[in-house]
């Protein structure tokens, strides 16, 4: 038993860190450090830099660009990206549809889509959720009816993140209305430029425009864009969702945010004029999160070690902890950041995000602190809400 990384792993971490330090555009890093979201260009540029290095899609089959790294190296790689901070790869292509195509797609589909995903030539988005479905993903009402060598798609998807940039969307559609719920679903790839697709932005409570509704009105989709077999889409979706859990703890993100919290609470002052960090209560609030995060990091290591030992097939029950606790820690760090900003969290400064010359109301970073806090409420809702995770633990682990 040895919780330390091996020398090889340590060297690998250094290699990744050096590569990021050298190649990550300074402008991108600064934007992320100050709490902003990466721009579309930030994400695309960085993905292409990684792709050039051969690190665009480490977890894919080597034939399609995978690096053959084991789970530990993959974890190190993601953590370094998160804590750089560098833009994380666009999950919808790299972590979601890519592996599905690689596993279940036709040879033609692989050739057509995978390289363009790795290089972010195509921006993908997700068409799973439907209005009113909530955590019940299998309640799919969007239909696809076969018409010669096309499907005709009608219906509506929602919570489609960054759909406004998307070239393609992968969708769950109902192809058999008679079958019971989870049967009768198929997995379709749809060109966002297809006639009959419209997008409506949903403004979130942080004022951001991250998510969208997507409407399908008699959209014709070539039948060769069906993945795998008709009516087996739910299997592919489950495969996709199990991949989504990788890195869900977002430990690197929380580490980076804790670094900023320590730094800012040393420079911001409490009411009596001393740095916030010298207030024992505030210092202890930070320490509490640090301890939470350390515990979670080791839990993450345990999951990785088990994966390495048993192969990736069997889902590790601890991964529900990664989601539950990981989201709580992320949310807690945004609370602390907002508390450091204090009154200066009040100002709403979306104009500044779009590059205004107005001076900020408080310190530069403070204007985003409330938005970041608001936005982070989502992490306990999406990707299997924390209530769902508790259900999973109770049923699958505790047998209740």
């Amino acid at each position, binding site marked *: 038993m040895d919780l330390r990384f091996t020398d090889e792993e340590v060297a690998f971490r250094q290699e990744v860190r050096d590569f990021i330090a050298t190649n990550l555009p300074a402008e991108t890093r600064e934007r992320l450090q100050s709490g902003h979201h990466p721009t579309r260009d930030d994400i695309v540029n960085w993905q292409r830099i990684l792709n050039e290095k051969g690190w665009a899609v480490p977890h894919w089959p080597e034939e399609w660009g995978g690096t053959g790294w084991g789970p530990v190296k993959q974890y190190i790689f993601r953590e370094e990206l998160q804590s750089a901070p560098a833009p994380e790869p666009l999950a919808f292509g790299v972590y979601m549809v890519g592996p599905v195509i690689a596993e279940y797609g036709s040879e033609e589909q692989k050739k057509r889509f995978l390289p363009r995903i790795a290089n972010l030539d195509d921006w993908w988005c997700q068409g799973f959720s439907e209005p009113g479905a909530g955590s019940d993903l299998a309640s799919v009402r969007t239909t696809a009816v076969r018409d010669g060598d096309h499907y005709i798609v009608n219906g509506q998807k929602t919570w489609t993140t960054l759909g406004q940039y998307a070239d393609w969307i992968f969708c769950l559609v109902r192809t058999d209305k008679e079958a019971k719920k989870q049967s009768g679903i198929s997995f379709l790839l749809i060109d966002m430029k297809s006639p009959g697709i419209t997008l409506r932005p949903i403004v979130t409570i942080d*004022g951001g425009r991250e998510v969208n509704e997507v409407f399908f009105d008699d959209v014709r989709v070539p039948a060769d864009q069906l993945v795998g077999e008709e009516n087996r889409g739910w299997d592919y979706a489950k495969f996709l969702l199990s991949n989504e859990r990788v890195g869900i703890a977002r430990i690197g993100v929380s580490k980076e945010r804790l670094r900023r919290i320590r730094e800012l609470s040393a420079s911001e*002052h409490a009411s009596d004029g001393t740095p916030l960090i010298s207030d024992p209560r505030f210092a202890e609030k930070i320490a509490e999160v640090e301890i939470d995060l350390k515990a979670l990091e080791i839990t993450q290591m345990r999951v990785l070690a088990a994966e390495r030992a048993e192969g990736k097939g069997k889902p590790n029950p601890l991964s529900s902890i990664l989601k539950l606790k990981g989201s709580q820690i992320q949310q807690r760090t945004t609370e602390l950041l907002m508390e450091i900003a204090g*009154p200066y969290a009040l*100002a709403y400064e979306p104009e500044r995000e779009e590059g205004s010359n107005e001076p900020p*109301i408080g310190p530069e970073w403070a204007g985003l602190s*409330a938005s970041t806090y608001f936005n982070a*409420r989502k992490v306990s*809702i999406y990707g299997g809400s924390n209530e769902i995770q508790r259900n999973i633990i109770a049923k699958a682990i505790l047998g209740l």
Partner: protein
Amino acid sequence: MDFDLSEEQNLLRQSAERLLADQYDFEARKQHGQDEPGWSRAMWAKFAELGLLAIPFSEEDGGLGGGPVELMLVAEAMGAKLTLEPYLPTVILGGGILRRAPESLRQRWLEGVIAGTTLLSLAHAERQARFTLSDVATRVRLDGDHYVLDGDKSLVLAGDSADALVVTARLNGERRDEGGIVLLLVDAKAEGVTRNGYATQDGRRAAEIQFRNVRVSQDNLIAGPETGFALLQAVTDEAIAALCAEAVGAMSAISGLTVEYLKTRKQFGVPIGSFQALQHRASDMYVELEQARSMALFATMMAAEQDAAKRGRAISAAKVQIGRSARQIGQEAIQLHGGIGMTMEAAVGHYFKRLTMIELMFGDTDHHLRRVAETVGPL
């Protein structure tokens, strides 16, 4: 010991609630927010008509002679509808100070405030102060028969639309001294006043205001260096009490929305409110709400207390309870709503944001908890 409202108080509450029920549903609120200057002047006129703007002023000054209880009723009703109009800055902060000003100032300004034609704000907070009320770096000096004002004020609530500003400035003493702070009434359009208005996270307005060599005639002095701080403190405590009541209105509304959502929203074929885990969390929200309501009542009762230490301890205790309840209720309301709670399309997020900002205003939960911990005596 009784919690009964007088007939007048009941009437006031009912009429305020009726007006807002009619004219301030979620859709109407969206409209009001798009009016210039970020809230509805038409609504403001209706508030005036109903006498809401006259509440705290003496009958002699043309007001209704109401006290903390009346303000609580109005604040709670407004909190429940998330009204955007500058009631806090004009009536409670600016008005709270002006109603204690010398008669000449009251005569000059209060008529307009009560009629709804004059808007006030309190230009007090400064960038470096965080939550220390006595931290005033803005300087003032006497030059002949004028005061001359220099300094920067921050987060002046609705400061961009105010007609007159109550400004705190230091005549003497060190930056954090309680002595030496004076309160002046300054015309918002006076020479040397520059205002930079902006939206706040809760859909309201605030302004950064620079004062550069602003000349203010002596008769605009509201309180001199011996009494300024005590007055500021008293009015701040009144404002916190009103803010607590507003928060209770908002928490009550957001809890109601959440329970309603749990009843109507179906998942896996049943209303999600039938899940016991969610029921228990809704119950805990209810407990937090009622505990907050109790402390808002306490703050109301203590807002008029003359002993500043006793009053401050009580007000801080109330603010702590409101802050804790607001965070738990706000976060749970979003969580129980799921995705829809994350969007601006549902009302719940707007309440959440306002509650979050209330937590941060006039001292956050940690600040007030420390004030309670560091002082002694029964609550």
